[in-house]
């Protein structure tokens, strides 16, 4: 085994997963100032969607392809439901959204436990993802490459949506100046809802990718949510570029630390790294400059 390629490639795959999870967070945080702690449970919902899809479409080769859009819709609708019922009452109270969604996350976890049982369920890997290629002694699994491809595609789709579509322009207008956007006729509430749908839907896609790593279990979301948030913190809010760099940096750094020390110490070291990084760049990698007294 090469002590360089293994952590690098494995870490890139972890980073890709973090990226999918963090993209949705960065989007909703950047636009609405909403910190959604239930985002991890949307990831979990995506994983369970993959499991349920396999019960219906029993061919694992096809079911995973069906599961991706299905998980996007399921998690997206959960997000929309959350937005309409809870978040909509608490704009401009970002810290409170954080706490409310903590509660929502607890309820969703318990629901999953009651519906699917506390014991996890298996998600079969499609045969076309079964296998690996040898890269300098590391048997790089196709599944990890698939995760990276998935993240890159999600990123490109999101970037294109924001940059080229009319809706993307509305989102950017709302992010930059909500009041002004309203005066030019953008229905910012509707924009918010669609943004929340998309952001949560991305978590669903991430959930499908996670289900290929660990199947499903009710606590699946909690494993990823903190790292995903650290990515958003380090990446700077509302900036895709920063989120991308931070996701891969955190993923790869964790893998290297795990290789050098232990997986437990890697968690500690990555956290320390983010705190030190914030000393150098307190507002994250990239900052949207806004003038005046906040």
């Amino acid at each position, binding site marked *: *085994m090469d002590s360089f390629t293994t952590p690098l490639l*494995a870490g890139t795959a972890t980073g890709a997963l973090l990226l999918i999870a963090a993209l949705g967070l960065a989007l909703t945080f950047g636009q609405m100032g909403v910190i959604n702690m239930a985002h991890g449970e949307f990831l979990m919902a995506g994983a369970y969607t993959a499991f349920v899809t396999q019960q219906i479409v029993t061919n694992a080769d096809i079911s995973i392809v069906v599961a991706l859009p299905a998980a996007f819709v399921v998690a997206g609708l959960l997000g929309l439901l959350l937005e309409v019922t809870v978040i909509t009452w608490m704009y401009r109270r970002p810290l409170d959204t954080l706490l409310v969604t903590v509660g929502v996350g607890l309820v969703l976890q318990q629901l999953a436990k009651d519906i699917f049982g506390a014991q996890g369920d298996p998600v*079969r890997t499609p045969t076309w993802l079964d296998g690996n290629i040898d890269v300098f002694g590391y048997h790089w699994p*196709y599944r990890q490459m698939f995760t990276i491809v998935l993240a890159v595609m999600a990123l490109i789709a999101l970037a294109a949506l924001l940059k080229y579509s009319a809706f993307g322009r509305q989102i950017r207008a709302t992010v930059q100046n909500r009041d002004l956007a309203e005066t030019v006729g953008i229905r910012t509430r509707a924009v918010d809802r669609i943004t929340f749908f998309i952001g949560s839907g991305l978590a669903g896609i991430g959930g499908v990718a996670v289900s290929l790593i660990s199947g499903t279990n009710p606590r699946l979301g909690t494993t990823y949510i903190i790292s995903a948030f650290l990515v958003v913190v380090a990446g700077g809010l509302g900036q895709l570029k920063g989120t991308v760099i931070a996701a891969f940096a955190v993923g790869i750094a964790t893998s290297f630390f795990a290789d050098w020390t232990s997986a437990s110490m890697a968690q500690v070291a990555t956290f320390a790294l983010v705190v030190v990084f914030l000393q150098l760049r307190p507002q994250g990698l990239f900052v949207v400059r806004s003038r005046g007294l906040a």
Partner: protein
Amino acid sequence: MFSPPTRHVIGTVVALTATLSLSACGNKDGDGSAAESCVDTSGDSIKLGFLNSTSGAMAISEQTVRDSLTLAAEEINADGGILGKEIEFVEEDGASDPAVFAEKIDKLLTSDCVAAVFGGWTSASRKAMLPVVEANNGLLFYPVQYEGLEASENIYYTGATTNQQIIPAMDFLASEGVETLFLAGSDYVFPRTANKIIKQYAAELGIEIVGEEYVPLDDDDWTTQVAKIVDAEPDFVFNTINGSSNVGFIKAYYEQGLSPETSPIISVSIAEEEAPAMGKDVTGQYAAWNYFQSVQSPANDVFIRAFQDRFGSDRPTSDPMEAAYTSLYLYKNLVEAADSFDVDDINESADGVSFDAPEGTVTIDGDNHHIAKTGLIGQINADNQFDIVWSSEEPIEPDPFLEGYDWWDPTAE
């Protein structure tokens, strides 16, 4: 610093607090003798406490134990109870939190006045309950295999200690001609202690340890660690991973091209309950226990049928469930042997009390309160059941401190 009236009021509050605190002054000389038992044995029912986590991370496993305890209690009641007294069981949630276990067992023993408590799963929960049950001179029946190195007058251990699970597993590996072994575990007490024993016994058996990796509890990503297994090419992997983390481990193991043909895994925490979560990925791998659903015995047939009638035909039975079921029957036999619910009476006549359990006949060792159990190795088949491929010749006497093994040096690294 304070204005006069303020000073006055604060002074009053502080003085009040101090006086009130001091009024409950401590007693430095007391030896803290055990509290008087409040168990009521005069009625026609006897209270027992079931303390398992029904919420939190461990609810996954502990609910199954609760179910088989419930079954055993119902069976015993239908059969006339214990010493003619009907079991009235008080249920509590340990919430997967050791401090809650300590609180709840205190409640069961001192408020509910139960005659004995059944439950606990993690070592942390047992360690948390131990001082409480000792201080109250109560009884605890603990149904899960654990890392040994413990014996309490107030606890009966109906799961395996290390010389009934880990050591037979190593004997099995030696009989298979294994020369190199890789250790993979969750980063907490049981795997660390188990691996300490494994390493010393491996040295004795001439098996080389070619790697040792740990991942935090509940962490799913095993990629980096599995890459090290690939690199080490061990004959066998000894798996002490706990809970859902197993799923990620097995997935990563397959992804990187490992299989039961090249580097098979022997696990000590994957049973009939856990295996289905890994589906086909786990087929062909091994596990060491003292009970499998596939054990052939009349007692087991009865147990499985009763359990599935009660909780659903799709429910598997597993080692900890069987150990919990057994623990309640053992308690019945203990009480009847002593003809008393009193803890000291029970302990006095405990040695040799036995029960025809689903796993076979088990017998209590009166010195260390563990039970003699047969070591079994199962291979997981496509139905996520275990085909028994190896068995110890006879029930193994429990030896929690491994005193009968010369190679064991507790202070060595």
